[in-house]
């Protein structure tokens, strides 16, 4: 993989945030990011329900009846969406919408992008056992249970713009924060 230096312009960051780039994030940041992701998935799930209802109406308006979804159905569909959403985001961009808002990124042990299979396992684990995040507050390394098992980390990586994030992920697959030393090769 290319080791082309990719510098995140430190001057675009608030002074207080410059030194924390690349360090593991704490509990509150990750909790808020998770909350945003849950809210996103909730909206998507409700949207899926509305979309399904509209589809039914368009197909057979006469005998139209809204889909009968129980609370459990919503939960199951939401969990499935959550797994797919987290998996896709972590395996490609390394961050979900909540991570993006909070300036976080999920990285593998070596600092690179998480392997797709590890991302899948992590997304399932985070969806089923979200309480594992609490361990992040207790851990000396700011790691949740899922991080410990899968040897992943959630670090601060405040993007300046979406373009920066995409370039960082697609070209280098690594975090290179500009002021840091040379990056280690991919494992």
């Amino acid at each position: 993989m290319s080791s082309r230096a990719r510098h995140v312009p430190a001057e675009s960051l608030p002074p207080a945030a410059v030194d924390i780039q690349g360090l593991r994030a704490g509990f509150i940041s990750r909790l808020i990011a998770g909350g945003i992701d849950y809210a996103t998935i909730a909206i998507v799930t409700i949207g899926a329900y509305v979309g399904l209802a509209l589809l039914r109406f368009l197909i057979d308006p006469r005998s139209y009846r809204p889909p009968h979804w129980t609370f459990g159905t919503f939960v199951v569909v939401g969990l499935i969406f959550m797994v797919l959403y987290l998996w896709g985001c972590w395996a490609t961009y390394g961050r979900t919408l909540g991570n993006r808002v909070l300036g976080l990124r999920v990285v593998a042990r070596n600092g690179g992008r998480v392997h797709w299979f590890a991302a899948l396992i992590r997304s399932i684990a985070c969806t089923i056992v979200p309480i594992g995040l609490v361990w992040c507050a207790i851990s000396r390394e700011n790691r949740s249970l899922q991080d410990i098992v899968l040897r992943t980390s959630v670090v601060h990586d405040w993007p300046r713009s979406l373009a920066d994030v995409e370039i960082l992920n697609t070209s280098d697959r690594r975090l290179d924060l500009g002021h840091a030393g040379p990056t280690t090769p991919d494992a």
Partner: protein
Amino acid sequence: MSDEWVEAAASPIVGEPRDLTPIIHEPGPQLPPSVQGPVDIALGAAVIVATPVIAVGKAAAYVAAPAAGAAWEFVKNPPLLPQSLTLGSMLDRLGERGRNVRQTATGDLTNATSDTLDAVVPGLVPGLVGQVVDRVDVTTLVLDVVDIDRIVTTALDGMDLTDVVVSRVDLDRIVTKVLDGMDLTEIVRTRVDMAGLAEDVIDDVDLPEIIRDSTTGVAADVINQGRLVALSGDELVNHWVDKFLLRRKKRQVDVPGVIEQQGPTS
């Protein structure tokens, strides 16, 4: 004068040659008519009488000239007389003396003439020139005869007009006077296409891009503030948990492979 000059300058300078006679206003001085007639008659009679006399005289002189010449030569240089006593010699001496006198007189006359001219010309010339100028339309004459275009072109080629204007003209005063005399606002309002100008300016300025940039900047600032608040929450939680668990060492939050950094940790 200035109007004539302007009109002449606007017209072709070198044109058809014109007869200068009409521009002479008056003829020269003449005898009175009562005297002019008799004088002309007398002159005519004299010419009639004198013409045959002159012709006869010419013929006689033509016939007698060779003999007269020989006789005159004999008289001037008779034989048997010393050369200094001959008539010719005496005539030569007389001629020499007369020539000396004439030359002296001529020199005196020349000097006297020059002195006279010096004394007379200064008083005479202005009046004379005045008379000439009064009788001749000098402007028309100059316009017809002189190639003013060529003169002006040569003069302009030989001088730095800009330098002349800059060094000799009080430009500040002129500009101030001009500006004081005009209503610039009104001029701009009436003569400038403000709508077109505004459209050009708007076309040149990428307004949507500016709005987008400013909006993005504001949004980024808000998000950064939110992240900093969350960061404070992280530090607060870590502080209390570590205190509760009686930890003394700082948390190891750096990720090998991402950054080797000894930065502040929470």
